[in-house]
C-alpha cells in the first residue's frame, strides 16, 4: 500500500504504510494502555519470541503480556545478559529481529554487553527497557539509570518514550532500523507512566525514515571498475565476511568465485557461507587462521573484500598488510570503506546486489597455479600442525580431535555456536561446514558467556535444526545460570564444555609472550556434570579417547538438552598464530 507522510505525537517523523502482514483485528483503532500497545506492536511486527526478565519499571508490560500468552512466546532467562545473548542467537539463526525485555537500572545495564556485541557483529535486535516515571527522570530515582546515554555508543539507534502515543511509531522505526541496511541493535526505553497511560492505538510499520538511507544505490561504474581490476589480476584473493550471509548472497557469492576461479578466504563470521571442502575455499584469515591465506595476502596482487571490515585480528600490522595488492572493497557501510585499509575501488553497496551485477562483467578464468600455492601451504600446515591436533598418538584428548569428531557426527545442517577462547578458534578451524550449516559466535566483541544463551536462542529460532554449543570451562561459568532456562523450556541443545582447567587462550598468551607466568588463569572448577544434573540436564564427563565416539553418540541420541564435559590437554596451544603487531605473512606454525 502507498505510504503517507504524517507526524505522530512527539517528534518522530517518517513515512509509514501498512505492514505486509496487516492484521485488521489486531490493529483496530482502540483505546489501550501503552504497555498493551507495546505487545500489540511487537505482534504487528511478527514477533514470536521475546527473551526477558521482569522488574518494577517494566511490570505494566509484563502484566499486558499475560493476556497475550497464547500469541507470543516469552522466555524467562536467568539473567538479562542471558536474554540479550539469546535474542542474538535467535536473530542469527532465524534471520529475524531478536527481541528482549528488561527492567530499568540493573536490568538494562545487564543488557549492555549483549547490545555491544550485537552492534559490532551487526545483529538486528530490539531491546525494550522499562524506565522510571517521566516525572522522576534525572532525579536518581530508585533503579534509574541513563539507559539512552549508556547505550548510545553501542546502538544503531535508541529512543526514550515518555508519552504512550509515541509507542507505535517508536517500535515501528526500531524494527525498520534494526533489520535494514547493515543490521544492528536498537534500544527503546519506555517510562513507566507511558506504559500506564491510555491512548487510541493504531499501528503502521515503517518503510522509510527521511534521514536514513539503509541501502546505497548500486553504482554501476564502481562495479565495472572492480571488474576491470579483477580481469587483469593474476593473483587475486577474495576475503569474505558476514556481509555475504547478511545480504543473503551465498549463492551469488559462489557464482562469482566459481566463474572467476578466485581463491576465497573467510573471516570468523564469514565462515559458513562457503562449504569447507569447496575447492576455492582456502581457509580462515587472521590471527589463528590458516597458513596459506595469511602468508599469501602479501603475495596477492588484488584483494577483493566482500562484506568484511578488515578487523585488526584479520589484518595484523596494517603497514605490512596486502603490500602488493590493489584493494576492492564491496561494503554496505560507507564508514567501513577506507577505515582501516585504503581501497582502490570501493563498491558501496549491498553484497548481493553488487555480486549479482559484478558477475556479468568478470571473465571466466581459473587460477590453478595461484590456487595450488595455497594448497602447498595447507599441506605444510597439515604436516606441522593439523595432523597432530586431529590425530594425536597419545596423551590427553585434544580440542581439535573432539571438534573434528563432533563435526563428523552431527547433521549437515547443524548450528554450531561457540564461546570465546581457544575452543572457539579450534572450532572455527576444524568444524567442517557443509553449506547448510551455520556458525554463530561472538566475533567483534569476543564476549565470554555468549555461547550458552546464544545457543538456546538459536534453537528457539530454528527449532528443526540441531544446535551444538561448544564452550570453554571459563566462559561456561559466565552464564552457567542459563542451564535453568534450558531445563525449564526443554531447549534441546547439545552442550560440550572443553575443559582444560585454564582460561586457555589467556594462558597461551602468557606462555608465548609473558614467559609462562600463569598469572591467575588456572581454575579449580566445580563438578560440572553434577551441576548440570542439579539443573535437570543429563550428561557425562569424558576423559578417555576410546570413549569419544560413544559419548558423542549418546549425546546426539538423547532427546532434549545434554551436557558433555570433555577433559582436554591442559596446556595445548592454538597454531598457526599471527602474533600481535606482526604482519600476516609472519604467521607462525609453532
Amino acid at each position, binding site marked *: 500500500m502507498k505510504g503517507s507522510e504524517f507526524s505522530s505525537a512527539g517528534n518522530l517523523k517518517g513515512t509509514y504504510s501498512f505492514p505486509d502482514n496487516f492484521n485488521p483485528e489486531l490493529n483496530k483503532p482502540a483505546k489501550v494502555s501503552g504497555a498493551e500497545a507495546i505487545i500489540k506492536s511487537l505482534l504487528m511486527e511478527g514477533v514470536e519470541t521475546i527473551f526477558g526478565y521482569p522488574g518494577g519499571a517494566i511490570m505494566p508490560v509484563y502484566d499486558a503480556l499475560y493476556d497475550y500468552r497464547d500469541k507470543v512466546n516469552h522466555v524467562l532467562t536467568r539473567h538479562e545478559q542471558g536474554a540479550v545473548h539469546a535474542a542474538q542467537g535467535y536473530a542469527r539463526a532465524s534471520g529475524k529481529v531478536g527481541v528482549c525485555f528488561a527492567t530499568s537500572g540493573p536490568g538494562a545495564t545487564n543488557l549492555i554487553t549483549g547490545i555491544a556485541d550485537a552492534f559490532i557483529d551487526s545483529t538486528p535486535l530490539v531491546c525494550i527497557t522499562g524506565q522510571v516515571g517521566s516525572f522522576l527522570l534525572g532525579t536518581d530515582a530508585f533503579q534509574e539509570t541513563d539507559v539512552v546515554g549508556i547505550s548510545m555508543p553501542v546502538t544503531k539507534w535508541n529512543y526514550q518514550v515518555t508519552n504512550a502515543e509515541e509507542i507505535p511509531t517508536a517500535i515501528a522505526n526500531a524494527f525498520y532500523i534494526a533489520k535494514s541496511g547493515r543490521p544492528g541493535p536498537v534500544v527503546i526505553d519506555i517510562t513507566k507512566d507511558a506504559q500506564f497511560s491510555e491512548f487510541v492505538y493504531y499501528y503502521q510499520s515503517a518503510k522509510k525514515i527521511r534521514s*536514513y*538511507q539503509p541501502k546505497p544505490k548500486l553504482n554501476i561504474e564502481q562495479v565495472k571498475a572492480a571488474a576491470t581490476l579483477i580481469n587483469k589480476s593474476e593473483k587475486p584473493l577474495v576475503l569474505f565476511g558476514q556481509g555475504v550471509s547478511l545480504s543473503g548472497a551465498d549463492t551469488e557469492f559462489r557464482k562469482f568465485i566459481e566463474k572467476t576461479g578466485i581463491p576465497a578466504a573467510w573471516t570468523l563470521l564469514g565462515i559458513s557461507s562457503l562449504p569447507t571442502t569447496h575447492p576455492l575455499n582456502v581457509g580462515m584469515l587472521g590471527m589463528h587462521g590458516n597458513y596459506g591465506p595469511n602468508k599469501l595476502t602479501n603475495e596477492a596482487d588484488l584483494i577483493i573484500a566482500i562484506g568484511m571490515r578488515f578487523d585488526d585480528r584479520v589484518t595484523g600490522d596494517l603497514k605490512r598488510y596486502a603490500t602488493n595488492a590493489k584493494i576492492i572493497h564491496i561494503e554496505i557501510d560507507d564508514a567501513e570503506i577506507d577505515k582501516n585499509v585504503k581501497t582502490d575501488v570501493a563498491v558501496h553497496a549491498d553484497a548481493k546486489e553488487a555480486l549479482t551485477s559484478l558477475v556479468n562483467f568478470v571473465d571466466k578464468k581459473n587460477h590453478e597455479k595461484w590456487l595450488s600455492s595455497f594448497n602447498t601451504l595447507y599441506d605444510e600446515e597439515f604436516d606441522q600442525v593439523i595432523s597432530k591436533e586431529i590425530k594425536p598418538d597419545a596423551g590427553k584428548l585434544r580440542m581439535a580431535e573432539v571438534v573434528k569428531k563432533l563435526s563428523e557426527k552431527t547433521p549437515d545442517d547443524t548450528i554450531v555456536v561457540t564461546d570465546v577462547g581457544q575452543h572457539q578458534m579450534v572450532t572455527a578451524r576444524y568444524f567442517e561446514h557443509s553449506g547448510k550449516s551455520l556458525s554463530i559466535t561472538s566475533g567483534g566483541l569476543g564476549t565470554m558467556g555468549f555461547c550458552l544463551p546464544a545457543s538456546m536462542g538459536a534453537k528457539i529460532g530454528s527449532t528443526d535444526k540441531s544446535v551444538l554449543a561448544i564452550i570453554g570451562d571459563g566462559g561456561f561459568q559466565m552464564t552457567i545460570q542459563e542451564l535453568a532456562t534450558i531445563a525449564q523450556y526443554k531447549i534441546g541443545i547439545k552442550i560440550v564444555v572443553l575443559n582444560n582447567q585454564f582460561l586457555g587462550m589467556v594462558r597461551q598468551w602468557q606462555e608465548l609472550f609473558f614467559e609462562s607466568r600463569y598469572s591467575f588463569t588456572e581454575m579449580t572448577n566445580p563438578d560440572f556434570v553434577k551441576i548440570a544434573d542439579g539443573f535437570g540436564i543429563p550428561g557425562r564427563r569424558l576423559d578417555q579417547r576410546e570413549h569419544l565416539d560413544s559419548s558423542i553418540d549418546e549425546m546426539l541420541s538423547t532427546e532434549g538438552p545434554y551436557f558433555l564435559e570433555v577433559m582436554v590437554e591442559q596446556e595445548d596451544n592454538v597454531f598457526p598464530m599471527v602474533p600481535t603487531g606482526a604482519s600476516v605473512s609472519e604467521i607462525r606454525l609453532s
Partner: protein
Amino acid sequence: MKQEYTLSIFTENHIGMLHRVTIIFTRRHINIESITASQSEVEGIHRYTIVIREELEQVQKVVKQIEKQVDVIRAHYHKTDELIYQEIALYKLSVSAIRDGLGIETIIRENNARLLTIEKDHLIIEKTGHKEETAELFEKLKPFGIVEFVRSGRVAIMKDTVNEFEKLEYNEEV
C-alpha cells in the same frame, strides 16, 4: 598534518542527538575546539558547526561515522578557506573604563566592536569576527580590566551552494 577543519552536521531535532554526535569524537580521542548548535533554514532540522584540529584522513572517517547515524541527515567537512564564518565575543568591563577617558571609545570604533549596554557598574562590549580579531580586542581591552569574557563557537556557511537536503528526497522506500 593536523589542520583546522570545520564540520557542518545536519540532524533531526531529537533529544540526545548532540551526544550521539560528540561521542564519535570522544571515541577517537579528538578534542572539539568549538561547537555551535542551532536550527537550520528547514524547520525541525538542526545544524551543528564543530571545529577540530585533525589530520584529513581522520576527519573523513569521523564525518562518515557521523553521517552513518540514523538521525543525521548530512555531514560535511571543510577547510577554513572554503567558508564564511564568524564568532561573537562579549567583554564585560568596569564602568570606570569610560570615566578614565583613556580612549576606549576609539578602541571600540577602530575594532568594529560596539557598546551593547552600560549598567550601573559595568559596561558590555560586543565584537563579531574571527577568533584572532576577538583575541586582538581582548588584548587591547586588558589594560582596562576585563571582568568577564566569553566567546561563542564558530558559525559557518559554505561559499559554494549545495542542496543539503537532497538526501531527504533520494531515500527510497525499501
